[in-house]
């Protein structure tokens, strides 16, 4: 009798375990955003940084475009297509057709694409034309929003006039040579101040 009850309990436990297992298989929850982050991780981590000159800038939908000419170590010009946010978004933030101009010297960090000379803008330092003229640091994909890098920059730099911060998307900061030196000392490495 005792043995029968034990057997019945054992069988009931097995049935229960199988039922729970089946239920977990059927109802597999997928946490929001995790898949995106994981799938994009390889791309997001692949940041490339180089110096160059703006060749062309256009506000477009759904992605604005920047063509930057990079001077290679062999003194050759290497053209890159860089994607920015949509014209709809950037115009609302205060960007306009001459916000960036061809010929401006830039240091640029991009999130590399699988296409060899294409990427998305992570950060752009538009150097002043002279040592007295201030530079502008524009930050975008991978930094925008409430991120440690954005917070770090907001604590140390003032915003470019005319750019709307309320949208909490990209940002534009004024960087004079003293502020830039401080950033470079505090966050060493090429554009270390916009790196994790």
């Amino acid at each position: 009798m005792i043995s029968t009850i034990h057997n019945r309990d054992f069988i009931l436990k097995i049935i229960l375990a199988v039922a729970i297992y089946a239920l977990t298989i059927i109802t597999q929850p997928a946490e929001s955003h995790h898949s995106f982050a994981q799938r994009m991780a390889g791309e997001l981590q692949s940041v490339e940084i180089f110096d160059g000159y703006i060749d062309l800038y256009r506000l477009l939908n759904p992605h604005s475009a920047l063509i930057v000419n990079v001077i290679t170590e062999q003194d050759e010009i290497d053209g890159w297509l860089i994607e920015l946010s949509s014209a709809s978004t950037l115009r609302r933030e205060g960007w306009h057709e001459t916000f960036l101009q061809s010929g401006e010297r830039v240091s640029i960090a991009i999130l590399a694409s699988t296409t060899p000379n294409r990427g998305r803008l992570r950060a752009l330092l538009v150097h002043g034309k002279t040592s007295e003229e201030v530079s502008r640091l524009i930050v975008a994909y991978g930094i925008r929003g409430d991120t440690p890098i954005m917070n770090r920059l907001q604590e140390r730099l003032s915003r470019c006039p005319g750019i709307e911060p309320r949208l909490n998307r990209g940002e534009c900061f004024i960087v004079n040579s003293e502020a830039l030196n401080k950033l470079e000392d505090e966050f060493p490495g090429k554009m270390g101040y916009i790196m994790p």
Partner: protein
Amino acid sequence: MPIKMALSSVITTCLIISTTACITNTSPEVPVFSGRYVGELTIVEPENYFLTNHGNQTFNNYDPNYEDPRQWDDCEPEGVPAILLTPAVATLDIISENKTVLLHYERDDAIRIVNMHNTNSKSDHKSVLGYSKGRWENNILVVETTNLNGGVIIAQTSYPISTNAHVIERYWRENGSADLLMEVVIEDPVNYIQSVIIKRKWIWAPNAPRHPWECVSLGPRHSESLDIESIKQQLEAL
């Protein structure tokens, strides 16, 4: 395209007329939501998406970096419900009329015509925006959409939505504010064991500029090295 342009023109005219009276009801039964809104960037997603086996398989097999059509052509239109949830800052114009409600999105310059009159009507044609019919439930505008092409719920994620999905949007105002609260309920038993509910607020913005979409594709994101000179010429010619 000419039909779309004509509709855009009608919408612009309607907006000028309706904006001034947008918060005031024109009839005692239903509110008038006509006017311009800008979608908040933040959307409220469920903590978990409870996938069926099929949904889980589809989820795991979908790589948004390759399977999202916009990875190959930027101008591929967003579908319902993704267009309701796109994080890009863009406007939505609503035109309430007796027999229809027009929903005109800045994104893709997309126009949805919600049939408010013959709610028994049916369509077999599938499309990115689907077939929508609507009704008023007290002060809530309810839009039900079927006949969708399917794809994913939110662009650049992997949560699937099937061609059999039924999307129910509810729009309402609260506390005297002209902002619209939106709740999107996705019923898709092929992929989910329970409805997926996502919320977003549309901010009343009658003075917000509406920029023409004028989509330009920068080409596929996965290709051999780009011919930058050729792209430059194309962009300069715009």
